[in-house]
């Protein structure tokens, strides 16, 4: 097989910082090439060099594509040659239809007038190719993230893609949608379309990739061929972080005490569609020192359940009773939920968790300003000491607590959000996808923090779409499906197969 892409000796500097150092990457025609590395290893920078976001001349090294030396001046050059990149944050316009999004930049037209019939027909054909059963006229905002991802791919196909670059495509997808997406890549491979897959999920990488390139600190570490011999995840992880992880989950012996939090008959309606129940009569409890996981597919109602518990931040007509330490509590507003001892670490830390323009210090104290002020006047030195204390304890890597939180890596941002909620001194923490988009090393640290919280006698609830994470971390796993809790497994008897079966066959008890 010939190489479709050969990047050699790529070095990219940003001022004094060298982001890429002599990086090489070759992709063969019709292969799925995985690119792995910790956050900040240089994956995204490399892809921006390849896709022309950083034009020729702003980096050193050479790019051969399709047998020719190339000097890309911009993204138009690369798209014309069939190099299409799909970013983690999707670039779709929510209030336009699927068809309008697909043909946004180059609609079939005659004398500048868009040929609607051609758009419709070609969209139908493209959607069939990616296996998406939606009308071309459906608005993008009305379909889930998984389907939006497929629309992006259909859009790439409309541009006659030859090299498809996917940046963390499955980060916000559930297992089923992820599997469908990966199957699609395999299908493309058969048609001769090459793919570069950037992913933190190693099980996906080992499942579909032909070769894996590991980047660390802006250098190419190794390219492994997965076709000749099956690769071990542990080996890749070792190469990524250059240290042995005895286990991806820290050891933990739970000390489970009294029940701290309970909800009964919790029912929530959809905010826009009254009468449509998103959470249906959930009974749920967590004990002190216990880590309870909530498994389920995207859209199962897990986040909606958590947010409705946390001060009715989601939904309308929230019904049901809540108890802390056996006493009924009022959770109708966020301040009341916080006062009752709840904390909710959101799955969307950029939009719902942090004030990105403010420094670490101000973010840490935001939910408990009373703790650093006397009669509403903030004691700036006490605030500084608090923030610095959390910086040390949580090992937030930053120049100082005055650093803007928007400039931190994902893992460090998550630690800032966790610090904020720890400083509010809750009894019960709800962590929604606490390790999404975070590299392996930082994940381990977050797990340690979660274990320490449980050991301090808090009740911890973890919502996660990564089953190994739930199995490795939680003392008890509940399964949610279509708004109801459909299964519950203690740690000893839980397994991926059992949980998946429970999700698939709703209502079946273990």
């Amino acid at each position, binding site marked *: 097989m010939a190489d479709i892409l050969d990047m050699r000796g790529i070095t990219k500097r940003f001022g004094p910082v060298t982001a890429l150092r002599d990086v090489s990457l070759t992709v063969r025609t019709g292969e799925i090439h995985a690119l792995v590395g910790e956050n900040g290893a240089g994956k995204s920078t490399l892809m921006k060099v390849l896709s022309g976001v950083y034009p020729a001349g702003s980096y050193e090294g050479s790019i051969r594509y399709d047998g020719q030396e190339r000097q890309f001046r911009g993204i138009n050059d690369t798209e014309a040659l069939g190099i299409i990149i799909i970013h983690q944050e999707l670039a779709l316009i929510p209030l336009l239809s699927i068809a309008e999004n697909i043909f946004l930049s180059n609609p079939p037209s005659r004398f500048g007038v868009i040929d609607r019939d051609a758009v419709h027909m070609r969209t139908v054909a493209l959607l069939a190719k990616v296996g998406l059963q939606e009308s071309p006229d459906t608005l993008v905002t009305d379909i889930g993230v998984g389907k939006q991802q497929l629309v992006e791919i259909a859009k790439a196909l409309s541009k006659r893609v030859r090299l498809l670059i996917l940046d963390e495509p499955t980060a916000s997808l559930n297992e089923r949608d992820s599997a469908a997406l990966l199957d699609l890549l395999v299908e493309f491979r058969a048609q001769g379309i090459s793919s570069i897959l950037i992913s933190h999920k190693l099980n996906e990488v080992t499942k579909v990739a032909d070769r894996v390139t590991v980047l660390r600190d802006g250098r190419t570490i190794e390219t492994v061929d997965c076709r000749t011999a099956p690769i071990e995840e542990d080996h890749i992880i070792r190469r990524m972080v250059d240290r042995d992880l005895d286990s991806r989950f820290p050891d933990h012996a739970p000390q489970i005490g009294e029940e701290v939090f309970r909800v009964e008959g919790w029912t929530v309606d959809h905010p826009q569609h009254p009468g449509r129940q998103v959470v249906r009569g959930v009974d749920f409890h967590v004990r002190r020192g216990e880590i309870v996981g909530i498994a389920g597919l995207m859209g199962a109602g897990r986040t909606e359940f958590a947010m409705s518990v946390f001060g009715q*931040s989601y939904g309308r007509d929230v019904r049901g009773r809540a108890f802390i330490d056996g006493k009924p509590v009022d959770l109708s507003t966020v*301040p009341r939920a916080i006062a009752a001892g709840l904390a909710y670490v959101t799955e969307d830390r950029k939009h*719902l*968790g942090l004030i990105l323009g403010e420094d670490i210090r101000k973010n840490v104290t935001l939910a408990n300003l009373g703790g650093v*002020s006397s009669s509403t006047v*903030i004691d700036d*030195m006490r605030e500084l*000491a608090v923030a610095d204390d959390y910086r040390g304890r949580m090992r937030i890597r930053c120049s*100082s607590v005055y650093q803007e939180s928007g400039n931190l890596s994902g893992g460090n941002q998550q630690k800032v959000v966790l610090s904020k909620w720890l400083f*509010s001194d809750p009894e019960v923490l709800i962590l929604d996808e606490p390790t999404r988009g975070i590299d392996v090393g930082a994940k381990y640290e977050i797990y340690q923090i979660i274990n320490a919280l449980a050991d301090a006698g808090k009740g911890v609830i973890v919502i996660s779409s990564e089953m190994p994470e739930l199995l490795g971390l939680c003392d008890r796993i509940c399964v949610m499906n279509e708004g109801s809790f459909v299964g519950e497994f203690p740690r000893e008897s839980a397994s991926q197969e059992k949980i998946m079966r429970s999700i698939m066959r709703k209502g079946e008890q273990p």
Partner: protein
Amino acid sequence: MSDVTVTPIARPGQRGFIKANLRQYGMLLSLFAIMLFFEVATNGTLLRPLNLTNLVLQNSYIAIMALGMLLVIVTGHIDLSVGSVAGFIGALAAVMMVQYQMPFVPAAILCLVAGGLIGAAQGYWVAYFKIPAFIVTLAGMLVFRGLMLAVLSGQSVGPFPVAFQRLSSGFLPDLSEVGGFRWSSMLLGVLLALALVAVNVRNRRRREQHGVEAEPFGFFVAKNLLMLAAICGLTYLIVSHRGLPNVLVIMAVLIALYAFVTTRTTVGRQIYAVGGNEKAAKLSGIGTERLTFLTFVNMGVLAALAGLIFAARLNTATPKAGVGFELDTIAACFIGGASAYGGVGQVTGAIIGAFIMGVMNNGMSILGIGIDYQQVIKGLVLLGAVCADVYNQKR
């Protein structure tokens, strides 16, 4: 906990420090540069005691409204109605005091309450119904302009009682006028300057104790000496005309109050949080709707105060009062470094912005530049200031 030392932050050195804080001091430098330019261009007319006093009187109402507007802009909104509200309240005051002979104090209090109610009426729709502030206050701009014309029946109403005129044209009575110089007023200015220096020294000590002082010592000394000299010098010039204007005292107290509230209190912090990321603020237990509502109430009260001061200055309520105030006020905030996206902006910046506009108005008028080109130049300065700010942030 206060004796805990924290990790010292990197000391970038004198030059690095100035570079990093260019944004903060850049505006002040621009104001000085503009003043220097007009001082030279007008052959020293700009800083004559009479002109300086007029400069303060002419810009006080814009500066006062800029305090409220800054909070509105920081929460991510805008208020286009403040000019109309100021005019309407001036008219209301005229009707109460001139036509119904109501005494000054109750009338003024009623006017401020009315301003608060107007702010509440507009803030309610913005905060709780999520109607864009641009639309709500555009409506308010029309409504209160119309109500003002109705209240005045299209006529100018005046003159006001003397007690009310003092609000704008009065000066602080001096206790010890010796040899034609008002020593106690001067002393007030010097004491204010010394108090500011004392606060700076205390804060620096505290930061040093915790090992987090980044400002080079030489820079700190120079900054404080300059500030001391500037305040004493300007006080001397103003005092040597007719004393400290009452309006200046009101303005200084308000500036100090708002600077303290925005930088040092939990409410101030929460306002910036709402503007920085409303959803995150809400999920952190901050009453975002209530805060937004209150910033509009506050804006209404300050617009009312500005309306009273303006009416007292003209000694009459005219149907043209307050036209275009909203634009000067908003421009002051943006020149002063506030972000149109919310979450960013400082009280001191907005005040400096107001006086940059004021000095330019005043200086260009002295130079005899027509009102036509004055507007062109002001518009370009606004655009230039914001462009420079955006450019600085991108670097």
